[in-house]
Protein backbone atom coordinates (compact mmCIF):
# COMPACT_ATOMS: atom_id res chain seq x y z
CA UNK A 1 0.00 0.00 0.00
CA UNK A 2 1.36 3.40 -0.95
CA UNK A 3 1.71 6.63 0.95
CA UNK A 4 -1.17 8.28 -0.90
CA UNK A 5 -3.80 5.73 0.04
CA UNK A 6 -2.51 5.85 3.60
CA UNK A 7 -3.00 9.63 3.66
CA UNK A 8 -6.49 9.24 2.18
CA UNK A 9 -7.44 6.70 4.81
CA UNK A 10 -6.12 8.88 7.62
CA UNK A 11 -7.98 11.92 6.30
CA UNK A 12 -11.24 9.98 6.23
CA UNK A 13 -10.58 8.91 9.81
CA UNK A 14 -9.88 12.54 10.75
CA UNK A 15 -13.31 13.50 9.41
CA UNK A 16 -14.99 10.82 11.50
CA UNK A 17 -13.18 11.83 14.70
CA UNK A 18 -14.04 15.50 14.17
CA UNK A 19 -17.68 14.50 13.62
CA UNK A 20 -17.56 12.64 16.95
CA UNK A 21 -15.93 15.58 18.67
CA UNK A 22 -18.59 17.96 17.37
CA UNK A 23 -21.29 15.59 18.67
CA UNK A 24 -19.79 15.53 22.14
CA UNK A 25 -19.44 19.30 22.21
CA UNK A 26 -22.99 19.74 20.88
CA UNK A 27 -24.28 17.40 23.57
CA UNK A 28 -22.46 19.40 26.24
CA UNK A 29 -23.96 22.63 24.93
CA UNK A 30 -27.54 21.51 24.30
CA UNK A 31 -28.15 18.13 25.87
CA UNK A 32 -27.23 18.56 29.53
CA UNK A 33 -30.16 17.42 31.68
CA UNK A 34 -31.73 20.24 33.69
CA UNK A 35 -30.00 23.02 31.78
CA UNK A 36 -31.86 25.35 29.44
CA UNK A 37 -29.53 25.80 26.47
CA UNK A 38 -30.87 29.31 25.98
CA UNK A 39 -29.18 30.41 29.21
CA UNK A 40 -25.78 30.22 27.55
CA UNK A 41 -26.78 32.93 25.08
CA UNK A 42 -28.04 35.53 27.55
CA UNK A 43 -25.96 37.65 29.86
CA UNK A 44 -26.98 36.86 33.44
CA UNK A 45 -29.04 39.57 35.07
CA UNK A 46 -30.07 41.08 31.77
CA UNK A 47 -33.84 41.66 31.92
CA UNK A 48 -35.61 40.25 28.84
CA UNK A 49 -39.30 39.97 28.05
CA UNK A 50 -40.87 36.58 27.46
CA UNK A 51 -41.48 37.56 23.86
CA UNK A 52 -37.86 38.51 23.33
CA UNK A 53 -36.76 35.19 24.85
CA UNK A 54 -39.13 33.23 22.63
CA UNK A 55 -37.96 34.98 19.50
CA UNK A 56 -34.29 34.41 20.46
CA UNK A 57 -35.11 30.75 21.00
CA UNK A 58 -36.62 30.56 17.53
CA UNK A 59 -33.75 32.46 15.99
CA UNK A 60 -31.25 30.01 17.48
CA UNK A 61 -33.40 27.04 16.33
CA UNK A 62 -33.62 25.87 19.95
CA UNK A 63 -37.30 24.92 19.41
CA UNK A 64 -36.38 22.36 16.75
CA UNK A 65 -35.74 18.66 17.53
CA UNK A 66 -32.16 17.94 18.67
CA UNK A 67 -30.94 16.14 15.51
CA UNK A 68 -32.04 19.10 13.38
CA UNK A 69 -30.41 21.48 15.85
CA UNK A 70 -27.20 19.53 15.43
CA UNK A 71 -27.33 19.96 11.65
CA UNK A 72 -27.77 23.75 12.08
CA UNK A 73 -24.97 23.75 14.62
CA UNK A 74 -22.47 21.93 12.39
CA UNK A 75 -23.48 24.04 9.39
CA UNK A 76 -22.75 27.19 11.41
CA UNK A 77 -19.42 25.81 12.61
CA UNK A 78 -18.39 25.11 9.03
CA UNK A 79 -19.42 28.63 8.01
CA UNK A 80 -17.13 29.97 10.75
CA UNK A 81 -20.02 31.07 12.95
CA UNK A 82 -19.05 29.71 16.37
CA UNK A 83 -21.29 32.11 18.28
CA UNK A 84 -20.63 35.45 19.96
CA UNK A 85 -18.49 35.87 23.06
CA UNK A 86 -19.63 38.45 25.62
CA UNK A 87 -16.27 38.29 27.34
CA UNK A 88 -14.22 39.16 24.27
CA UNK A 89 -17.00 41.29 22.77
CA UNK A 90 -16.38 39.65 19.42
CA UNK A 91 -17.26 36.43 17.57
CA UNK A 92 -15.81 33.35 19.32
CA UNK A 93 -13.73 32.13 16.39
CA UNK A 94 -12.21 35.60 15.80
CA UNK A 95 -11.44 35.97 19.50
CA UNK A 96 -9.71 32.57 19.64
CA UNK A 97 -7.75 33.06 16.42
CA UNK A 98 -6.52 36.46 17.61
CA UNK A 99 -5.07 34.86 20.73
CA UNK A 100 -3.86 31.65 19.06
CA UNK A 101 -0.27 32.81 18.34
CA UNK A 102 0.40 33.66 21.98
CA UNK A 103 -0.77 30.21 23.07
CA UNK A 104 1.12 28.46 20.28
CA UNK A 105 4.32 30.28 21.22
CA UNK A 106 3.94 29.24 24.84
CA UNK A 107 2.97 25.63 24.09
CA UNK A 108 5.72 25.11 21.53
CA UNK A 109 8.31 26.50 23.95
CA UNK A 110 7.00 24.12 26.60
CA UNK A 111 7.12 21.14 24.22
CA UNK A 112 10.69 22.00 23.24
CA UNK A 113 11.70 22.41 26.89
CA UNK A 114 10.12 19.17 28.04
CA UNK A 115 11.63 17.14 25.19
CA UNK A 116 15.03 18.78 25.53
CA UNK A 117 15.07 17.92 29.23
CA UNK A 118 12.99 14.75 29.20
CA UNK A 119 14.62 12.74 26.42
CA UNK A 120 18.19 12.88 27.80
CA UNK A 121 16.89 12.28 31.33
CA UNK A 122 14.92 9.24 30.16
CA UNK A 123 17.95 7.86 28.31
CA UNK A 124 20.25 8.30 31.29
CA UNK A 125 17.71 6.66 33.60
CA UNK A 126 17.40 3.67 31.24
CA UNK A 127 21.15 3.25 30.87
CA UNK A 128 21.66 3.44 34.64
CA UNK A 129 18.58 1.37 35.53
CA UNK A 130 18.12 0.97 39.29
CA UNK A 131 21.31 2.90 39.95
CA UNK A 132 21.59 6.32 41.61
CA UNK A 133 20.97 8.35 38.44
CA UNK A 134 17.85 6.33 37.60
CA UNK A 135 16.44 6.68 41.10
CA UNK A 136 17.17 10.42 41.00
CA UNK A 137 15.40 10.85 37.65
CA UNK A 138 12.40 8.87 38.87
CA UNK A 139 12.17 10.84 42.12
CA UNK A 140 12.37 14.14 40.24
CA UNK A 141 9.75 13.05 37.71
CA UNK A 142 7.32 11.81 40.38
CA UNK A 143 7.83 15.04 42.29
CA UNK A 144 7.27 16.91 39.04
CA UNK A 145 3.88 15.37 38.29
CA UNK A 146 2.82 15.98 41.89
CA UNK A 147 3.29 19.75 41.60
CA UNK A 148 0.09 21.73 41.03
CA UNK A 149 1.26 23.80 38.06
CA UNK A 150 -0.65 26.96 38.97
CA UNK A 151 0.97 26.91 42.37
CA UNK A 152 4.43 26.30 40.94
CA UNK A 153 3.87 29.27 38.62
CA UNK A 154 3.14 31.58 41.54
CA UNK A 155 6.15 30.28 43.46
CA UNK A 156 8.36 30.88 40.40
CA UNK A 157 7.09 34.47 40.27
CA UNK A 158 7.79 34.86 43.97
CA UNK A 159 11.36 33.61 43.66
CA UNK A 160 12.55 34.83 40.27
CA UNK A 161 10.70 38.13 40.19
CA UNK A 162 10.19 39.26 43.79
CA UNK A 163 12.92 37.70 45.96
CA UNK A 164 15.67 38.02 43.32
CA UNK A 165 14.63 41.65 42.88
CA UNK A 166 14.81 42.26 46.62
CA UNK A 167 18.32 40.84 46.67
CA UNK A 168 19.26 43.12 43.77
CA UNK A 169 19.78 40.15 41.44
CA UNK A 170 18.60 40.10 37.82
CA UNK A 171 14.94 39.11 37.69
CA UNK A 172 12.63 37.46 35.20
CA UNK A 173 9.31 39.06 34.26
CA UNK A 174 6.24 37.53 35.88
CA UNK A 175 3.41 38.85 33.75
CA UNK A 176 2.53 39.18 30.06
CA UNK A 177 4.35 38.51 26.81
CA UNK A 178 6.41 41.66 26.40
CA UNK A 179 7.80 44.63 28.33
CA UNK A 180 5.43 47.61 28.28
CA UNK A 181 8.05 50.16 27.32
CA UNK A 182 9.48 48.12 24.49
CA UNK A 183 6.02 47.45 23.12
CA UNK A 184 5.42 51.22 23.09
CA UNK A 185 8.70 52.64 21.81
CA UNK A 186 9.78 49.92 19.42
CA UNK A 187 6.79 47.79 18.38
CA UNK A 188 6.95 45.12 15.71
CA UNK A 189 4.67 44.61 12.77
CA UNK A 190 2.85 41.36 13.41
CA UNK A 191 3.34 38.74 10.71
CA UNK A 192 3.02 35.31 12.25
CA UNK A 193 1.88 36.68 15.60
CA UNK A 194 4.69 34.75 17.26
CA UNK A 195 6.76 37.46 18.94
CA UNK A 196 10.03 35.53 18.80
CA UNK A 197 9.68 34.84 15.08
CA UNK A 198 8.37 38.28 14.10
CA UNK A 199 11.05 40.17 16.04
CA UNK A 200 13.79 38.06 14.47
CA UNK A 201 12.34 38.54 10.97
CA UNK A 202 12.26 42.31 11.45
CA UNK A 203 15.63 42.30 13.20
CA UNK A 204 14.36 43.87 16.44
CA UNK A 205 16.70 42.24 18.92
CA UNK A 206 15.61 44.20 21.98
CA UNK A 207 12.04 43.11 21.36
CA UNK A 208 13.21 39.53 20.90
CA UNK A 209 15.13 39.64 24.18
CA UNK A 210 12.16 40.97 26.09
CA UNK A 211 9.81 38.38 24.56
CA UNK A 212 12.25 35.59 25.36
CA UNK A 213 12.64 36.70 28.98
CA UNK A 214 8.87 36.84 29.36
CA UNK A 215 8.59 33.32 27.97
CA UNK A 216 11.02 31.68 30.42
CA UNK A 217 8.90 31.24 33.55
CA UNK A 218 5.53 30.37 31.96
CA UNK A 219 7.03 27.89 29.51
CA UNK A 220 9.04 26.23 32.27
CA UNK A 221 5.94 25.91 34.47
CA UNK A 222 3.94 24.53 31.54
CA UNK A 223 6.68 22.10 30.46
CA UNK A 224 6.55 20.44 33.85
CA UNK A 225 3.11 19.03 32.98
CA UNK A 226 4.51 16.93 30.15
CA UNK A 227 8.08 16.53 31.37
CA UNK A 228 7.36 13.59 33.64
CA UNK A 229 5.41 11.83 30.88
CA UNK A 230 8.24 12.32 28.39
CA UNK A 231 10.81 10.98 30.86
CA UNK A 232 8.69 7.98 31.72
CA UNK A 233 7.88 7.03 28.12
CA UNK A 234 11.48 7.59 27.00
CA UNK A 235 12.88 5.48 29.85
CA UNK A 236 10.48 2.58 29.31
CA UNK A 237 10.95 2.63 25.56
CA UNK A 238 14.74 2.82 25.83
CA UNK A 239 14.79 -0.13 28.25
CA UNK A 240 12.65 -2.08 25.81
CA UNK A 241 14.91 -1.28 22.86
CA UNK A 242 18.11 -2.07 24.77
CA UNK A 243 16.74 -5.59 25.30
CA UNK A 244 16.34 -6.12 21.55
CA UNK A 245 18.45 -8.60 19.62
CA UNK A 246 19.78 -5.97 17.21
CA UNK A 247 21.40 -4.17 20.13
CA UNK A 248 23.23 -7.39 21.01
CA UNK A 249 24.41 -7.67 17.40
CA UNK A 250 25.54 -4.03 17.48
CA UNK A 251 27.45 -4.74 20.68
CA UNK A 252 28.99 -7.82 19.11
CA UNK A 253 30.43 -5.54 16.42
CA UNK A 254 32.51 -3.84 19.11
CA UNK A 255 30.71 -0.50 18.83
CA UNK A 256 31.18 1.78 21.83
CA UNK A 257 28.15 2.39 24.07
CA UNK A 258 27.72 5.94 22.81
CA UNK A 259 27.37 4.79 19.19
CA UNK A 260 25.01 2.01 20.17
CA UNK A 261 22.73 4.38 22.04
CA UNK A 262 22.84 7.25 19.55
CA UNK A 263 22.75 5.31 16.30
CA UNK A 264 21.08 2.01 17.04
CA UNK A 265 18.82 2.55 20.05
CA UNK A 266 17.69 6.18 20.00
CA UNK A 267 15.97 6.14 16.60
CA UNK A 268 13.93 3.12 17.60
CA UNK A 269 13.26 4.25 21.15
CA UNK A 270 12.19 7.79 20.39
CA UNK A 271 9.14 6.92 18.28
CA UNK A 272 6.75 6.41 21.22
CA UNK A 273 7.69 9.89 22.45
CA UNK A 274 7.01 11.37 19.02
CA UNK A 275 3.76 9.49 18.44
CA UNK A 276 2.39 10.80 21.75
CA UNK A 277 3.30 14.38 20.76
CA UNK A 278 -0.29 15.13 19.73
CA UNK A 279 -1.70 13.95 23.04
CA UNK A 280 1.03 15.82 24.89
CA UNK A 281 0.10 18.99 23.05
CA UNK A 282 -3.53 18.50 24.10
CA UNK A 283 -2.50 18.16 27.73
CA UNK A 284 -0.35 21.27 27.40
CA UNK A 285 -3.21 23.29 25.88
CA UNK A 286 -5.30 22.27 28.88
CA UNK A 287 -2.47 23.29 31.16
CA UNK A 288 -2.14 26.54 29.22
CA UNK A 289 -5.50 27.69 30.61
CA UNK A 290 -4.01 27.56 34.08
CA UNK A 291 -0.51 28.82 33.28
CA UNK A 292 -1.78 31.69 31.13
CA UNK A 293 -4.02 32.75 34.00
CA UNK A 294 -1.16 32.70 36.48
CA UNK A 295 1.18 34.70 34.23
CA UNK A 296 -1.48 36.96 32.62
CA UNK A 297 -0.36 35.55 29.27
CA UNK A 298 -2.72 36.95 26.62
CA UNK A 299 -3.59 33.61 25.00
CA UNK A 300 -6.71 31.53 24.30
CA UNK A 301 -6.58 29.82 27.69
CA UNK A 302 -6.51 33.09 29.57
CA UNK A 303 -9.53 34.24 27.58
CA UNK A 304 -11.37 30.98 28.32
CA UNK A 305 -10.65 31.39 32.04
CA UNK A 306 -12.17 34.88 31.91
CA UNK A 307 -15.11 33.34 30.07
CA UNK A 308 -15.64 30.97 33.00
CA UNK A 309 -15.85 33.87 35.44
CA UNK A 310 -18.37 35.59 33.13
CA UNK A 311 -20.49 32.43 32.70
CA UNK A 312 -19.70 32.78 29.00
CA UNK A 313 -20.25 29.09 28.07
CA UNK A 314 -20.42 29.84 24.35
CA UNK A 315 -16.80 30.96 24.54
CA UNK A 316 -15.67 28.12 26.83
CA UNK A 317 -17.33 25.44 24.69
CA UNK A 318 -15.90 27.07 21.55
CA UNK A 319 -12.46 26.95 23.12
CA UNK A 320 -12.91 23.24 23.86
CA UNK A 321 -13.91 22.53 20.28
CA UNK A 322 -10.97 24.56 18.99
CA UNK A 323 -8.43 22.76 21.20
CA UNK A 324 -9.87 19.33 20.37
CA UNK A 325 -9.68 20.10 16.66
CA UNK A 326 -6.08 21.26 17.03
CA UNK A 327 -5.19 18.10 18.86
CA UNK A 328 -6.80 15.84 16.26
CA UNK A 329 -5.05 17.67 13.43
CA UNK A 330 -1.67 17.61 15.16
CA UNK A 331 -2.10 13.89 15.79
CA UNK A 332 -2.73 13.39 12.08
CA UNK A 333 0.31 15.44 11.10
CA UNK A 334 2.51 13.49 13.51
CA UNK A 335 1.26 10.18 12.11
CA UNK A 336 1.81 11.30 8.53
CA UNK A 337 5.33 12.53 9.27
CA UNK A 338 6.01 9.26 10.99
CA UNK A 339 4.77 7.32 7.97
CA UNK A 340 7.11 9.32 5.73
CA UNK A 341 10.09 8.71 8.02
CA UNK A 342 9.46 5.03 8.67
CA UNK A 343 8.12 3.19 5.62
CA UNK A 344 7.12 0.14 7.70
CA UNK A 345 4.20 2.07 9.18
CA UNK A 346 2.26 2.21 5.93
CA UNK A 347 2.07 -1.54 5.60
Amino acid at each position, binding site marked *: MGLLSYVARRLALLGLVLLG*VSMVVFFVLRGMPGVDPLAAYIAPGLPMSADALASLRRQLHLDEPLPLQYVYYVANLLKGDWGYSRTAAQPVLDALLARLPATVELAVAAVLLSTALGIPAGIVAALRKDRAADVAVRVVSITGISFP*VFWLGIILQLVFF*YYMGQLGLPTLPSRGRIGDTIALIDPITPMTGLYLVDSLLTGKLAFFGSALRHLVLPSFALSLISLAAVVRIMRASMLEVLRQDYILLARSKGLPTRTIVMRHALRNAITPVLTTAGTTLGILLGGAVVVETVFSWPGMGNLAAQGILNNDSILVVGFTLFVATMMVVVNLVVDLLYAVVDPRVRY
Partner: protein
Amino acid sequence: MLGQLASIRRSTVATTGAALFVAIFVTGAVAPLVIPASVVRDVAFGARLLPPSARHWFGTDDFGRDLFSLVMLAANLDLRVALSVVLGALLVGTVLGAVAGLVNRLDEPIMRATDVFLSIPSLVLAMAIASVLGRSVQNLAIALVFVSWPIYCRLMRGQVLSEKQKPYVKSLRTLGVGPARMIFLHVVPNTLFPVIARAPADVGLILITMAALSYIGFGPGPYVPEWGSLVAAGQTYIFQAPWLVVFPGVAIFLTSLSLNLVGDWARDVFDPRLRS
Protein backbone atom coordinates in the same frame (compact mmCIF):
# COMPACT_ATOMS: atom_id res chain seq x y z
CA MET B 1 20.69 -8.64 44.08
CA LEU B 2 20.64 -5.07 42.84
CA GLY B 3 17.17 -5.63 41.50
CA GLN B 4 16.01 -6.90 44.85
CA LEU B 5 17.52 -3.95 46.60
CA ALA B 6 15.73 -1.62 44.24
CA SER B 7 12.41 -3.34 44.78
CA ILE B 8 12.81 -3.20 48.55
CA ARG B 9 13.69 0.48 48.30
CA ARG B 10 10.68 0.99 46.07
CA SER B 11 8.30 -0.67 48.49
CA THR B 12 9.64 1.42 51.41
CA VAL B 13 8.99 4.51 49.33
CA ALA B 14 5.48 3.22 48.60
CA THR B 15 4.88 2.56 52.30
CA THR B 16 5.98 6.09 53.13
CA GLY B 17 3.58 7.37 50.49
CA ALA B 18 0.74 5.26 51.86
CA ALA B 19 1.42 6.42 55.43
CA LEU B 20 1.47 10.04 54.31
CA PHE B 21 -1.82 9.61 52.47
CA VAL B 22 -3.51 7.91 55.41
CA ALA B 23 -2.38 10.77 57.66
CA ILE B 24 -3.82 13.36 55.29
CA PHE B 25 -7.01 11.34 54.84
CA VAL B 26 -7.53 11.06 58.61
CA THR B 27 -6.89 14.79 58.98
CA GLY B 28 -9.49 15.50 56.32
CA ALA B 29 -12.01 13.17 57.95
CA VAL B 30 -11.50 14.53 61.46
CA ALA B 31 -11.02 18.24 60.72
CA PRO B 32 -14.73 19.23 60.50
CA LEU B 33 -15.38 17.48 63.82
CA VAL B 34 -12.52 19.18 65.67
CA ILE B 35 -12.38 22.62 64.10
CA PRO B 36 -15.43 24.80 64.88
CA ALA B 37 -17.30 26.11 61.84
CA SER B 38 -17.03 29.61 63.24
CA VAL B 39 -13.33 29.69 62.22
CA VAL B 40 -14.49 29.92 58.61
CA ARG B 41 -17.35 32.37 59.20
CA ASP B 42 -15.84 34.78 61.72
CA VAL B 43 -13.96 37.64 60.15
CA ALA B 44 -11.36 39.48 62.23
CA PHE B 45 -9.99 42.42 60.32
CA GLY B 46 -7.67 43.27 63.17
CA ALA B 47 -5.81 40.01 62.58
CA ARG B 48 -5.46 40.28 58.78
CA LEU B 49 -2.44 38.76 57.00
CA LEU B 50 -0.50 37.81 60.13
CA PRO B 51 2.65 35.79 59.44
CA PRO B 52 2.97 32.23 60.81
CA SER B 53 3.37 32.17 64.60
CA ALA B 54 2.79 29.87 67.56
CA ARG B 55 -0.84 31.02 67.66
CA HIS B 56 -1.46 30.80 63.94
CA TRP B 57 0.84 28.06 62.58
CA PHE B 58 0.19 28.96 58.94
CA GLY B 59 -0.57 32.65 59.61
CA THR B 60 -3.92 34.33 58.84
CA ASP B 61 -5.66 35.24 55.58
CA ASP B 62 -7.11 38.54 54.38
CA PHE B 63 -10.24 37.98 56.49
CA GLY B 64 -8.06 37.38 59.56
CA ARG B 65 -8.98 33.67 59.60
CA ASP B 66 -6.57 31.00 60.84
CA LEU B 67 -5.02 29.51 57.67
CA PHE B 68 -4.02 26.26 59.37
CA SER B 69 -7.67 25.49 60.16
CA LEU B 70 -8.74 26.42 56.64
CA VAL B 71 -6.11 24.16 55.03
CA MET B 72 -7.09 21.24 57.29
CA LEU B 73 -10.78 21.74 56.57
CA ALA B 74 -10.10 21.96 52.85
CA ALA B 75 -8.51 18.48 52.95
CA ASN B 76 -12.00 17.17 53.59
CA LEU B 77 -13.60 18.66 50.49
CA ASP B 78 -10.68 18.05 48.13
CA LEU B 79 -10.23 14.41 49.10
CA ARG B 80 -13.95 13.74 49.06
CA VAL B 81 -14.29 15.13 45.54
CA ALA B 82 -11.14 13.44 44.18
CA LEU B 83 -12.06 10.05 45.64
CA SER B 84 -15.68 10.13 44.53
CA VAL B 85 -14.73 11.28 41.03
CA VAL B 86 -12.30 8.38 40.59
CA LEU B 87 -14.79 5.95 42.10
CA GLY B 88 -17.54 7.17 39.79
CA ALA B 89 -15.29 7.07 36.72
CA LEU B 90 -14.04 3.63 37.70
CA LEU B 91 -17.59 2.35 38.01
CA VAL B 92 -18.84 3.82 34.73
CA GLY B 93 -15.66 2.94 32.86
CA THR B 94 -15.26 -0.65 33.99
CA VAL B 95 -18.93 -1.47 33.44
CA LEU B 96 -18.93 -0.01 29.94
CA GLY B 97 -15.57 -1.62 29.20
CA ALA B 98 -16.73 -5.03 30.39
CA VAL B 99 -19.89 -4.71 28.32
CA ALA B 100 -17.83 -3.77 25.26
CA GLY B 101 -15.57 -6.75 25.80
CA LEU B 102 -18.35 -9.23 26.40
CA VAL B 103 -21.15 -8.10 24.08
CA ASN B 104 -19.89 -8.06 20.51
CA ARG B 105 -22.77 -5.95 19.24
CA LEU B 106 -21.97 -3.07 21.61
CA ASP B 107 -18.20 -3.23 21.29
CA GLU B 108 -17.89 -0.99 18.24
CA PRO B 109 -20.19 1.88 19.38
CA ILE B 110 -18.77 1.99 22.91
CA MET B 111 -15.17 1.99 21.74
CA ARG B 112 -15.77 4.67 19.10
CA ALA B 113 -17.34 6.89 21.78
CA THR B 114 -14.33 6.22 24.00
CA ASP B 115 -11.97 7.22 21.17
CA VAL B 116 -13.78 10.51 20.69
CA PHE B 117 -13.67 11.32 24.38
CA LEU B 118 -9.98 10.48 24.54
CA SER B 119 -9.28 12.78 21.61
CA ILE B 120 -10.46 15.80 23.60
CA PRO B 121 -8.06 17.03 26.32
CA SER B 122 -9.85 16.14 29.55
CA LEU B 123 -9.20 19.36 31.46
CA VAL B 124 -10.59 21.39 28.57
CA LEU B 125 -13.69 19.21 28.19
CA ALA B 126 -14.29 19.32 31.94
CA MET B 127 -14.15 23.11 31.73
CA ALA B 128 -16.84 23.17 29.06
CA ILE B 129 -19.15 20.82 30.92
CA ALA B 130 -18.77 22.55 34.26
CA SER B 131 -19.26 25.90 32.60
CA VAL B 132 -22.55 24.86 30.99
CA LEU B 133 -23.80 23.17 34.18
CA GLY B 134 -23.00 26.27 36.23
CA ARG B 135 -20.13 27.00 38.59
CA SER B 136 -20.25 24.78 41.68
CA VAL B 137 -18.07 22.09 43.22
CA GLN B 138 -20.73 19.48 42.60
CA ASN B 139 -20.96 20.31 38.91
CA LEU B 140 -17.18 20.30 38.74
CA ALA B 141 -17.16 16.76 40.14
CA ILE B 142 -19.78 15.64 37.61
CA ALA B 143 -17.72 17.15 34.81
CA LEU B 144 -14.60 15.35 36.03
CA VAL B 145 -16.37 11.98 36.09
CA PHE B 146 -17.62 12.72 32.60
CA VAL B 147 -14.08 13.11 31.26
CA SER B 148 -12.34 10.40 33.30
CA TRP B 149 -14.26 7.21 32.53
CA PRO B 150 -12.97 6.50 28.99
CA ILE B 151 -9.48 5.46 30.05
CA TYR B 152 -10.90 2.80 32.39
CA CYS B 153 -13.32 1.68 29.71
CA ARG B 154 -10.54 1.05 27.20
CA LEU B 155 -8.36 -0.67 29.79
CA MET B 156 -11.16 -2.90 31.05
CA ARG B 157 -12.20 -3.95 27.56
CA GLY B 158 -8.64 -4.99 26.73
CA GLN B 159 -8.44 -6.97 29.95
CA VAL B 160 -11.72 -8.75 29.34
CA LEU B 161 -10.79 -9.59 25.76
CA SER B 162 -7.44 -11.09 26.74
CA GLU B 163 -8.98 -12.93 29.68
CA LYS B 164 -11.59 -14.47 27.38
CA GLN B 165 -8.79 -16.01 25.32
CA LYS B 166 -7.21 -17.80 28.27
CA PRO B 167 -7.44 -21.58 28.42
CA TYR B 168 -9.10 -21.70 31.83
CA VAL B 169 -12.18 -19.93 30.46
CA LYS B 170 -12.55 -22.58 27.78
CA SER B 171 -12.05 -25.42 30.20
CA LEU B 172 -14.57 -23.96 32.65
CA ARG B 173 -17.02 -23.60 29.79
CA THR B 174 -16.64 -27.28 28.91
CA LEU B 175 -17.32 -28.01 32.57
CA GLY B 176 -20.69 -26.36 32.09
CA VAL B 177 -20.11 -23.08 33.94
CA GLY B 178 -22.75 -20.62 32.70
CA PRO B 179 -21.89 -17.24 31.16
CA ALA B 180 -23.12 -15.06 34.05
CA ARG B 181 -21.34 -17.13 36.67
CA MET B 182 -18.24 -17.19 34.49
CA ILE B 183 -18.18 -13.43 34.10
CA PHE B 184 -18.80 -12.45 37.70
CA LEU B 185 -16.89 -15.17 39.50
CA HIS B 186 -13.93 -15.68 37.16
CA VAL B 187 -13.39 -13.10 34.45
CA VAL B 188 -14.14 -9.84 36.25
CA PRO B 189 -12.01 -10.44 39.38
CA ASN B 190 -9.02 -11.36 37.21
CA THR B 191 -9.37 -8.30 35.02
CA LEU B 192 -10.00 -5.76 37.75
CA PHE B 193 -6.58 -5.60 39.38
CA PRO B 194 -4.65 -3.87 36.59
CA VAL B 195 -7.53 -1.43 36.20
CA ILE B 196 -7.63 -0.63 39.89
CA ALA B 197 -3.84 -0.30 39.95
CA ARG B 198 -4.26 2.93 38.03
CA ALA B 199 -6.60 4.41 40.60
CA PRO B 200 -4.17 5.86 43.21
CA ALA B 201 -2.22 7.85 40.63
CA ASP B 202 -5.51 8.98 39.08
CA VAL B 203 -6.83 10.24 42.41
CA GLY B 204 -3.68 12.37 42.57
CA LEU B 205 -4.22 13.62 39.04
CA ILE B 206 -7.89 14.45 39.65
CA LEU B 207 -6.95 16.21 42.87
CA ILE B 208 -4.55 18.47 40.98
CA THR B 209 -6.98 19.00 38.10
CA MET B 210 -9.76 19.87 40.46
CA ALA B 211 -7.59 22.33 42.38
CA ALA B 212 -6.50 23.89 39.07
CA LEU B 213 -10.08 24.31 37.82
CA SER B 214 -11.06 25.65 41.16
CA TYR B 215 -8.15 28.10 40.96
CA ILE B 216 -9.30 29.47 37.59
CA GLY B 217 -12.82 30.10 38.81
CA PHE B 218 -14.84 26.94 39.45
CA GLY B 219 -14.12 27.12 43.17
CA PRO B 220 -16.75 27.17 45.91
CA GLY B 221 -16.19 30.76 47.10
CA PRO B 222 -14.48 32.17 50.21
CA TYR B 223 -16.73 30.52 52.80
CA VAL B 224 -16.02 26.93 51.77
CA PRO B 225 -12.33 26.10 52.24
CA GLU B 226 -10.81 24.44 49.18
CA TRP B 227 -7.09 24.26 48.39
CA GLY B 228 -7.19 25.65 44.84
CA SER B 229 -9.43 28.57 45.84
CA LEU B 230 -7.22 29.30 48.85
CA VAL B 231 -4.24 29.61 46.48
CA ALA B 232 -6.26 31.86 44.17
CA ALA B 233 -7.37 34.05 47.06
CA GLY B 234 -3.83 34.28 48.40
CA GLN B 235 -2.31 35.22 45.05
CA THR B 236 -3.51 38.80 45.48
CA TYR B 237 -1.21 39.17 48.51
CA ILE B 238 1.62 37.04 47.14
CA PHE B 239 4.43 39.55 47.85
CA GLN B 240 2.94 40.72 51.15
CA ALA B 241 1.87 37.40 52.61
CA PRO B 242 3.41 34.54 50.59
CA TRP B 243 2.32 31.97 53.18
CA LEU B 244 -1.25 32.28 51.92
CA VAL B 245 -0.13 30.61 48.69
CA VAL B 246 2.65 28.42 50.06
CA PHE B 247 0.71 26.36 52.62
CA PRO B 248 -2.36 25.31 50.59
CA GLY B 249 -0.04 24.54 47.69
CA VAL B 250 2.19 22.35 49.85
CA ALA B 251 -0.95 20.52 51.01
CA ILE B 252 -1.94 19.78 47.39
CA PHE B 253 1.61 18.78 46.55
CA LEU B 254 2.04 16.39 49.48
CA THR B 255 -1.31 14.72 48.92
CA SER B 256 -0.69 14.20 45.25
CA LEU B 257 2.91 13.11 45.90
CA SER B 258 1.74 10.47 48.39
CA LEU B 259 -0.76 9.15 45.85
CA ASN B 260 1.79 9.11 43.06
CA LEU B 261 4.27 7.18 45.20
CA VAL B 262 1.63 4.55 45.95
CA GLY B 263 0.48 4.63 42.32
CA ASP B 264 3.99 4.09 40.95
CA TRP B 265 4.40 1.04 43.13
CA ALA B 266 0.91 -0.27 42.31
CA ARG B 267 1.61 0.04 38.61
CA ASP B 268 4.86 -1.92 38.96
CA VAL B 269 3.14 -4.66 40.94
CA PHE B 270 -0.09 -4.99 38.99
CA ASP B 271 0.81 -4.09 35.43
CA PRO B 272 1.76 -7.38 33.81
CA ARG B 273 3.43 -5.64 30.86
CA LEU B 274 6.03 -4.02 33.11
CA ARG B 275 6.78 -7.21 34.97
CA SER B 276 9.94 -8.89 33.75
